[in-house]
């Protein structure tokens, strides 16, 4: 009976281990390096496995009877450790995961079956295998890796063939440290008024994402494929370009994102320019004529890189956009730029300028200079692809902000709320405060619980954010407990004490601001922490 119980417990533990480990592999994008880093960082989670292994040896090999209790305790511990918990990103049973689980099961069956069939004997091998189950699963992962890579390669080649067969297709690659998803979205909206457009869906910005989009979404009758390209390492963009062969390109920005993997900003820049190089190479005339390459002309790094790459002569391929007429670092001029940016209760008005298309007034429901910058990119590119100005104006006017991201809500003409509840990074929060301060003649109020998930920098970031915000607002209301002390410290440096309030709940804070603060006012709701904070 003891054997049967141990066998059943072992099988349960093995199944739980498989589910947990393959999920981690999925979260690590099946990347071997990332998986190994994960093992190093989470070695402590295998302590119980080691305990089980050692106690099994003591019990079976050294015949030390009391070790049996250790076995039981380790197994209970492993059960608790591995029982599925609520996860932000659940395990998705993709074909690949199914294959991996299948190989795991084969391995486990091969390892424990001979021992398990003899129910009258002890279960020593079953226990050893159970204790070492993460290792077995890792071996299964290693077995699958070359097969999966060849599948992947084949799949990507099929996508490449589809693109290569379509001479008339205009493929626009969009990359950049910030803003690429927004530019993709705005550009798609505008171009759809004239063309059949396929865009890669949200967050599908890897080589596999591009492949899936081509295989599942791109149709032969489409005119334009907009492909968002994300990068974490040097060569990532080139990998995507090799599949989609972009003939047009937009670079939105280059900044200090993913420096842990890129090491230097020069590497970031080089990687983004893999797109420009590919686009220049593929830019033979098709039904669109020469497809434009558009880059952020307000970024000095990009300006200098263009000169490095192509010298002056090749610049004719490349067009610049920005919020200034002059290019960054005093280099050249922006082909397209916006100025006279004014925030109002309906959103933002700005003037769009270019030599070729003249100056035009635009209206949008979007707020903030980053959004305007992204709109300028989309407008410029659409003009270059022959969409007419009036059509673009109409589409831009209709673009709605993403909910809870600088979304303007009005209780009345004298009472606005800027809902930025989903923002949670220091840069975005400062931008939101800038948007707030651009409302002239309004009493400006910020309501915020501060930012979380900033590890050991949380206090420091919140304090410095509050200090900055204090210079731009008339009133501040800190809600919740999490960051109260840090925020209060920051606000007190730049804001009078009688203009700073602590209120427990967001709803009460909004009510308080509406009833107790007089005048025409605009309230920024910056970040809204979920219930578990």
């Amino acid at each position, binding site marked *: 009976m003891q054997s049967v119980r141990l066998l059943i417990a072992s099988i349960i533990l093995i199944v739980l281990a498989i589910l947990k480990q393959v999920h981690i592999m999925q979260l690590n994008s099946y990347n071997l390096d990332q998986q190994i880093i994960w093992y190093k960082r989470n070695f402590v989670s295998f302590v119980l496995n080691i305990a089980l292994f050692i106690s099994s040896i003591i019990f079976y090999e050294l015949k030390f009877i009391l070790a049996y209790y250790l076995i039981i305790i380790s197994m209970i511990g492993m059960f608790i450790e591995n029982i599925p918990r609520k996860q932000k990103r659940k395990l998705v049973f993709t074909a690949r995961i199914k294959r991996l689980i299948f190989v795991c099961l084969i391995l486990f069956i091969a390892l424990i079956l001979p021992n398990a069939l003899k129910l009258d004997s002890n279960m020593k091998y079953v226990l050893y295998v159970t204790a070492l189950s993460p290792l077995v699963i890792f071996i299964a992962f290693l077995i699958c890796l070359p097969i999966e890579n060849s599948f992947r390669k084949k799949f990507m080649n099929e996508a490449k063939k589809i693109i290569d067969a379509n001479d008339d297709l205009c493929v626009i690659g969009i990359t950049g440290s910030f803003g690429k998803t927004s530019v993709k979205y705005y550009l798609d909206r505008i171009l759809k008024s*004239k063309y*059949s457009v*396929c865009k890669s869906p949200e967050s599908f910005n890897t080589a596999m994402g591009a492949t899936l989009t081509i295989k599942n*979404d791109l149709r032969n*009758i489409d005119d334009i494929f907009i492909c968002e390209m994300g990068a974490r390492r040097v060569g990532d963009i080139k990998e995507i370009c090799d599949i989609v062969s972009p003939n047009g390109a937009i670079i939105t920005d280059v900044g200090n994102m993913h420096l842990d993997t890129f090491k230097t900003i020069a590497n970031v820049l080089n990687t983004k320019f893999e797109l420009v190089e590919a686009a220049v190479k593929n830019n033979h005339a098709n039904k669109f004529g020469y497809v434009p390459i558009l880059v952020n002309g307000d970024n000095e790094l990009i300006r200098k890189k263009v000169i490095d790459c192509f010298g002056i002569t090749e610049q004719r391929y490349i067009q610049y956009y920005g919020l200034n007429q002059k290019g960054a670092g005093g280099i050249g001029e922006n082909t397209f730029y916006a100025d006279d940016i004014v925030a109002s209760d309906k959103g933002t008005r700005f003037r769009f300028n270019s030599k070729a298309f003249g100056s035009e007034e635009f209206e949008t429901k979007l707020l903030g200079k980053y959004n305007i910058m992204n709109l300028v990119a989309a407008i410029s590119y659409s003009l270059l692809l022959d969409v007419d100005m009036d059509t673009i104006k109409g589409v831009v006017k209709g673009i709605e902000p993403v909910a809870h991201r600088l979304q303007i809500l009005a209780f009345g003409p004298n009472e606005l709320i800027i809902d930025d509840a989903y923002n949670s990074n220091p840069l975005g929060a400062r931008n939101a405060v800038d948007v707030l301060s651009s409302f002239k003649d309004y009493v400006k109020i910020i309501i915020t619980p501060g930012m979380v998930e900033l590890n050991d920098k949380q206090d420091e970031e919140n304090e410095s954010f509050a200090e900055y915000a204090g210079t731009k607002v008339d009133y501040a209301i800190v809600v919740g407990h999490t960051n109260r002390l840090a925020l209060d410290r920051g606000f007190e440096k730049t804001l009078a004490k009688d203009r700073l309030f602590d209120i427990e709940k967001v709803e009460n804070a909004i009510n308080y601001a509406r009833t107790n603060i007089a005048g025409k006012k605009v309230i920024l709701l910056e970040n809204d922490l979920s219930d578990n904070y």
Partner: protein
Amino acid sequence: MKLNVAVVFGGKSTEHEVSVISALQAIENIDKDKYNIIAIYMDKKGDFYYSKENLLVDSKNFKNLNSLLSKCSNVYFVKDKNHTYLREVNAGLFGNKLNQLVDVSFPIVHGTNVEDGNLQGYFHTLNLPVVGPDTLAAALSMDKYVMKEYCKAIGVPVIDALRFDRKDFRNVNEIITRVKNEIGFPVIVKPINLGSSIGIKKAKDEVSLKEALELAFSFADIILIEKAITNLREINCAVLGDKFDAECSALEEPFGNDEILSFADKYMGGSKGAKGNKVGAKSQNVGAKSQNVGDDILSSHVGASPNKVGAKSGMASLSRKVPADIDEKKAEEIRKYAKMIFKYLGCSGVSRIDFIIDKDTDKVYANEINSIPGSLSFYLFKPLGMEYKTLLDRLIKIAVDNYKNEERLSFSFDNNLLA
């Protein structure tokens, strides 16, 4: 990029064979450098067949249908993610071997169940661009009474007609009274929607009217009684375009034999290896000329057909003159009406509209519209210098452009009201 064009023909229709001939002719003439043709045969039960070996593009193979179909795969269309594919109904042990991408559907079908909007609606649901009319235009064109009322509404003259259903037939005397009072003999009785001469009969008096009604009601629940014009000329005009732009073809004048074309003549005898065209669908049954006739008559343009299929027309005697010998003023009037009908019905691709001129009064009447005319009326565009290949290219382009245009207009419905 080569678009995958599924040419679908045949179907559960009395004009099944004619459609096969029209389609094979078109397939032979489509520009293969631009389009990848997928020939899909729809049998009389409505099943789709596809041949990887391209057996379905040769008319010779259709002589022995059973043997042909045994070598083809029974297939279905399916929308999977953003694409539409052709797959085998009987997938093998290891899944579906066939997974043919389809970009555009091109129904070349005639008659009820297929030319009447049903097939068009099916492809629309599959999210495919459809060459030719959309569901509504095809359906409106198929119903002879609706067609007449529609023409009246937009100011195009039509021959007076009365509409009766099977229930009215119980009181046949009342029908006779109304015919006498409202249109007068002679008349032609026809089923409301059959796309050929089936069930059509002329009546000179009460007795022959009763006979004609009996015949018509044996084919349809709803019939039409139309004033017969005894001294007439038939003039047909095809229109190419979409709801924004339309252009007219050369005009043709078919000369039907005064003999009655029985169904057997037209389809059994006639269609056998004959006609590059949809066969003389309805010359009048009766000794008169072919006023009700509206569908195509097989014929003279057979000669113009580059297709060998048409070569041995058994009905060459049914000839036609292109361009019709008609004065320019009358021709202009006909072209104007043809374009109006095409536009207001929302037609797309190529339609042929058949007119009748009453020689006694010199009045023009719109008689019938074929939303997918036999041979796609290519022989009427040829005199204008448009090769069949070019016509087909235009037709496909119109379909894709219209599809894209509609897609642009439709907004995504992201909100789930039930959520």
